[in-house]
């Protein structure tokens, strides 16, 4: 019925089916093109030319770096309404930062994960944190069997609690797989990411056997009053959307000699932090006197993060 009407229409008015299809095709084509180039407009809205042309972290001169840090502070002011101070903390000579965690006294209260969330300017809605606390069956160290969705009261008598964060490996698989060298290991042992160089391919997330890397699916949302203003280029400055991030042992604190935020939040003192190269340090005492192990030793990653039990 409709067909007959159309054909009689076109015969009388002269619009052929071909003409109509051409018009529809042209319109669809225009719409598809507009959609296809839409990321470009998004990019333009977000990223300045300076941002786009910025060199790799390790190629920035001190002058370049000062300009970059000022620009980041300026962007944070505009985007988040927060006054922040972004610095570039460098490794201290003669220091290799190490962490040890006492599984005998960790109670699983998750305050370390919460402190990380606040300290590192994580996205609020997703409750992101570099620390994941696993509730484990006594007698097993199989991370895959750990439960992160446990509830209180803790500690439960038949369980132990194992917080897992970046292990700052000496042979980091995440660094090996990065196609653009946006992540590397620094002289004090910290594996860092240049958020401006990262292309967000997430290879490193897949390569990490400790599930320690996180991806910024969205632009982090943080109320201005909650932004931690004490920031560093390689650690807790607010990350852009679409890049990887990871625990840096709070290098903006620890490279100044301060304790990491997760340690200060620990109510039991399960966490021990210090310089692995200093034979007098407390962490060296732990390594020498406690039953110490590393996670997934068989992978040969050589973590700078150690777990131990009391006798």
């Amino acid at each position, binding site marked *: 019925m409709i067909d007959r009407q159309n054909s009689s229409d076109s015969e009388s*008015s002269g*619009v*052929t089916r071909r*003409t*109509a299809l051409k*018009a*529809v095709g042209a*319109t669809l084509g*225009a*719409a598809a093109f*507009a*959609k296809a180039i*839409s990321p470009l*407009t998004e990019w333009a*809205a*977000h990223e300045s030319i300076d941002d786009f042309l910025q060199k790799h972290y390790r190629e920035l001169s001190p002058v370049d770096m000062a300009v970059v840090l000022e620009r980041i502070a300026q962007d944070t002011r505009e*985007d*988040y*309404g927060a006054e922040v101070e972004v610095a570039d903390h460098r490794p201290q000579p003669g220091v290799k930062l190490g962490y040890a965690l*006492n599984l005998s006294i960790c*109670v699983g*209260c*998750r*305050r370390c*994960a*919460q402190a990380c969330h606040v300290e590192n300017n994580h996205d*609020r*809605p*997703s*409750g*992101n944190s570099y620390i*994941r*606390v696993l509730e484990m069956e006594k007698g097993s160290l199989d991370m895959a069997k750990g*439960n*992160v*969705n*446990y*509830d*209180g009261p*803790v500690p439960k008598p038949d369980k132990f609690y194992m917080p897992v964060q970046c292990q700052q490996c000496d042979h980091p698989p995440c660094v090996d797989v990065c196609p653009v060298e946006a992540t590397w290991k620094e002289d004090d042992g910290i594996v860092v990411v240049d958020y401006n160089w990262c292309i967000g391919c997430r290879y490193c997330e897949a390569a990490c056997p400790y599930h320690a890397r*996180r991806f910024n699916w969205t*632009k*982090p*949302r*943080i*109320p*201005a009053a909650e932004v931690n203003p004490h920031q560093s280029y390689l650690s807790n400055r607010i990350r852009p959307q679409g890049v990887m991030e990871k625990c840096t042992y709070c290098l903006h604190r620890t490279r100044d*000699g*301060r*304790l990491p935020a997760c340690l*200060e939040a620990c*109510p*039991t*003192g399960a966490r*021990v932090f*210090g*310089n692995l190269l200093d034979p007098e340090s*407390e962490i060296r*005492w*732990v390594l020498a006197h406690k039953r110490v192990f590393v996670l997934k030793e068989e992978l040969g990653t050589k973590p700078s993060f150690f777990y131990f039990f009391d006798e």
Partner: protein
Amino acid sequence: MNPSGFRFTRLTPALVVVGLVWIAGGMWLLAQEARSPAQPGGGHMAETSTPRAQPSELRLPMRSAGVAQPRVLTDEFDHHGDPVYAACSTCHATREANFKAGLDLLPTEFHQGLRYSHGELNCLSCHNADNYDTLRRADGRALDYQNVMALCSQCHGPQTRDYNHGSHGGMVGFWDRAKGERERNRCIDCHDVHAPAYPRVNPVFPPRDRGALEQLRREQAHSANPSSHRHD
């Protein structure tokens, strides 16, 4: 028919309108996408901020200022209306020491509501019957309340050793002591002296990342139908 094969006809206006709507729609979508992520982070954040943690009875690391001499609240008020505290010796000077008080014989007249669970000790294992304003070492010597850790250390050797090597008890400040000071909790900042077992608490900050939610979903599916992937 013109050379291009296109003639202005009755249908043409309709096609043009449809086309314009299409393009306008496309542009609108584009504009929406360009605009939405550019919203400032502080916009509609109030309802999505971190949920506050459940209060628990956990004693947190604190920047405390030394152990004060304990004093007991009396039911008297001074002329400012402030409650009056009394030193231990105020009452104990007039009372006979009861060496049996403790595990099986809790005080009923005073110190009511004291929760006591500390091994086989009784009151005078630690409190000094000769001078109630001090503590008593195992060898009978008096010990100031300020040095309470020396009292605990008499029995809790491994904990003392670990504490002395920085691997027991919370702390804040600097790991690099050349750069700054560090403050540490003492035994009694975290442990109730009369019932020192560490309390069980509700964890804070439940995870909401994709991995955690995925695991939760799997667990729920599994508990709803526990035999599903075993017998197929």
